[in-house]
Structure formats: C-alpha cells, structure tokens
C-alpha cells in the first residue's frame, strides 16, 4: 500500500498534466472560456436570491448572495468532482489497455482540476464579500484546512465511484439522483437552524458536506470560528473515506484492463 502511494507521488506530473488537460478542454472549447467558472454560480446565486428573498417570504438571512455562495461553491466542487470522476477510468480505456501507470491518478486528477476551478470561483465569493461589506476576520485563514479536508473526502469518494463504474455502468445515473437528494438534505439553500434541533447533531455527524458547509459559512460569512468538534469528526470521516476508497480501488484496479 505504501509502495503504491509512493508510485502515485512519482506520477504527480501526470496528475498535473491530466488536470490541466481537463481544464483546458473545458475552457477553450467555449468561447467565453474561464468566464463560465463565474457565470454558472453567478446565475444560480441570482436565481436563489430572487426565489428566497423576493418570491418566497424573506428567509431572514441578511446578505443572502454571500450566504448562498459560501454554501453553493463548496457543494459545486464536491458535486462536479464526484460526477466527473465516475467516468475517469472508463473514459480513458485506450490508455489503460496500452500503458502501465498507477490508475489512481485518473480520478485524483479530476478532483484536482475541480479544486482549481473552485479556487477560481472563490474570487466571485470574495467579490460579493467586498460588495456586501461582510467583515472578514482572521478566521478566514481556516479556509485551506477546510479545503484540504474536502479534497481528502472527494478523492476517497472519487476513487470508490470510478472503480465501481468499471463493473457497473449505471453508477453515473444512480449517483446523479443520489447527489440531487444529497444537495437537498444539506443546508445549502436554507440555514442549519431551520433543521429541527434534535436532528441537527445527526446531520452534522452523518453528512460531512453539511459539516463542511456550516464551517465554510462560519469563517467566510459569519466571521466566526469553525466548530472544531464538528471539524475534527469530519476530518476523521474524510480520512476513512480515503482509506476505504483507496483500498477498494487498489483491489479492483488489476482487473480494469480486462474489463474495459
């Protein structure tokens, strides 16, 4: 297992190259290029703001666009990284049948390119923070830690799903539905406080995305410290996801070349 990790690290240049390929193809195939990174979350923010502060009775959340972006952008990162990674192995079958390299780098690169995309989109969030005069505190320095935990979690899920998809080709369709459900049980469009008080601890403990988004909002929107207990639990969950995802991938990957 440690040998495999060392091998993956030796292929870091390949991870970077595949991630860059992914971003280049994504951006240069559309005339607006990198603008799309901003455009999609911007439009969604507009829609949610109109719906939740004008059409429905006011949600009572001040500076709603900042609030929604602080939840939506991390969610988009997770959603796009996992959905993209599902086909990371199957889409590269010509490579796998002809070249030996640690297969793990395929889903890992997809998570990497979406992490870069997330960082670009964060510029939009900070622009809204300035426009709405949300006071930034030093707690914002927790951002790299949150990002790291989310990357660990995403890689774990990505490894698991991309390996399973080789054998069961409807993983994509199943996950599209599951991720939509996941989106609605995560406090993204609504505050955590709207969830029944007795249910809240379960949501924070069982849904690492909820825990992450609550903490992103603490540091970026509320100017408050992260909830360290919740964060520690999420970190452990993310590590577990990584270990399980890695172990399953490692077990299934020798059969990839035959299966594809």
């Amino acid at each position, binding site marked *: 297992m440690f040998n495999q990790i060392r091998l993956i690290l030796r292929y870091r240049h390949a991870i970077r190259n*595949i991630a860059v390929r992914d971003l280049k193809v994504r951006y240069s195939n559309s005339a607006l290029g990198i603008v799309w990174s901003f455009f999609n979350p911007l439009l969604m923010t507009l829609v949610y703001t109109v719906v939740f502060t004008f059409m429905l009775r006011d949600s009572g959340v001040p500076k709603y666009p900042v609030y929604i972006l602080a939840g939506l952008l991390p969610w988009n990162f997770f959603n796009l990284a996992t959905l993209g990674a599902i086909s990371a192995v199957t889409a590269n079958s010509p490579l796998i*049948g002809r070249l030996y390299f640690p297969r793990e780098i395929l889903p890992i690169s997809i998570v990497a390119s979406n992490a870069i995309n997330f960082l670009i989109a964060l510029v939009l969030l900070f622009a809204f923070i300035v426009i709405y005069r949300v006071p930034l505190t030093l707690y914002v320095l927790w951002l790299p830690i949150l990002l790291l935990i989310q990357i660990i979690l995403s890689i774990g899920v990505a490894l698991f799903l991309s390996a399973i998809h080789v054998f069961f080709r409807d993983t994509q369709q199943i996950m599209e539905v599951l991720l939509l459900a996941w989106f609605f049980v995560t406090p993204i469009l609504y505050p955590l406080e709207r969830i029944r008080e007795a249910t809240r601890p379960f949501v924070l403990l069982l849904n690492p995305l909820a825990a992450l988004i609550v903490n992103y909002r603490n540091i970026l929107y509320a100017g408050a410290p992260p909830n360290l207990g919740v964060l520690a639990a999420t970190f452990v969950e993310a590590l577990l996801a990584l270990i399980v995802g890695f172990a399953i991938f490692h077990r299934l990957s020798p059969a990839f070349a035959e299966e594809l």
Partner: protein
Amino acid sequence: MSAIIRFDHVSKKYKLHADRPRAFTQLFVRAMQGQWRAPADEFWALRDLCFEIPKGQMVGIIGPNGSGKTTALKLMSNILRPTHGQVDVRATVAGLIGLGAGFHPDLTGRENVYLNGSLMGLSRREVERRFDDIVGFAEIGDFIDVQLRRYSTGMQVRLGFGVAVNVDAEIILADEVLAVGDEAFQRKCLDRIRQLRSEGRTVIFVSHDVATVELMCDRVLVLSSGRLVEDGPTAKAVQRYHILMAARHE
C-alpha cells in the same frame, strides 16, 4: 547474464462473461430471480509459459492471430496480471503497444508530448530535455503547436513512436509498430530500434512480418493457441512457424 524478463509457468485466463450483470439494475433483477452468478465462459489466452530474456537481447514473438502475443506483451508491461505463475520484470518498460495512446485531440502536439511523457513516468524537465529529439524524430515541424485533431494519422503515429523511443526505458515492447507509416519512416523506426539495441536495451518485437523479424531478432518465440511451441535461434524458429502455418491451411 541475469534475466531482465522472466515468465515462470505463466497462464492467463480471460472470462468471457457475456452473462455477468453489467449494471446495478441488472444485479437487482438477478437477485430477485435468485440467481446471483451465471457461470462464465473461460478462455485461456496463455498456458504455462516459461522463458527468460537476458538484458540486451532482441527477441521476436510470432504466431498466428489469437495465439497470445499481445497478451504476453501486456503481462510484461504490467497492464495485465497473470492468472497463474509469475511474471518478473526488473526494469522500466516503454509501452510501444499503444502508439499515440494518451493523445488528446483537443490539445496541441506539444501538450500531448508532455502528457504522454508524464504517463510514462517522466517529469516535466525530463520531457523538456528530450523534446527536440522527439519532435525531430517524428518530423512534425511547425505542426507541434497545432491541435492533434488536425494531424494526419501518419503524423499521430510518428509522434507516438517518437515519445516511446525517447523515454529511456530499458525494455521496448514493439507490437506491430510497422503496420502504419510509409516505407521511409518504417526504415527509420527499424534503424532507431537497432540503435536502442546497440545501447544495451532489451527489445521485444511482435510482428506478422516474418521477414522483418528474421532481419532484426537474435531469438524468436513461437506461440500457438497460447502455448510456447518454439523458443530458439531465429532461423530455426521461423522454420517451425512456417510449418505451423502450413498445417493450419490444410
């Protein structure tokens, strides 16, 4: 001399599971019917292969279609794992098996060279150092900064070959590499392979073109239906191959 490639009683079985559930929905239906696993059809691509290849040898592998040549190469490059037995390869392998594999149509030739090189384990600097050799060999010229989708098939193949012969791997696996490319380029490829060989690299050369194999190799393995039927000096092995093919046609 010690063996750089060693096959120890290697067998490879493929499962032709036309009947295996390929989707969760299918699995669910099967479970409802109470039949989890349908018996899989099996196919032995290689049976009980034993040979050793010392460093620096140029070995040809010949045999009729479906005799297991490509499977043997894929085992050498660790793309496949053996069902039984052991494959020992004590060196870096450049997969010539996939000429141009790993190329992306939307990226330029340059970007593709870096991507392909890194998939063979090279760092950015290592690719940089070889870049001129690769492009020079492939005779790509100014097209190097053009998207690959605008390349002719020949250009793509030449670029793939250029990367594979320049990555400094100790073992070169050449699977029907001469099937594409014009005569001049074929000669260039053979010259390059000979040069690599004179530098002490080990070359495994798979081809249907027996004349070229005779010209290039010191030793030839003949495969038939997954078994090693001959392993020896080129002339003797090729003779055996001709007898084998003649018997097939009767």
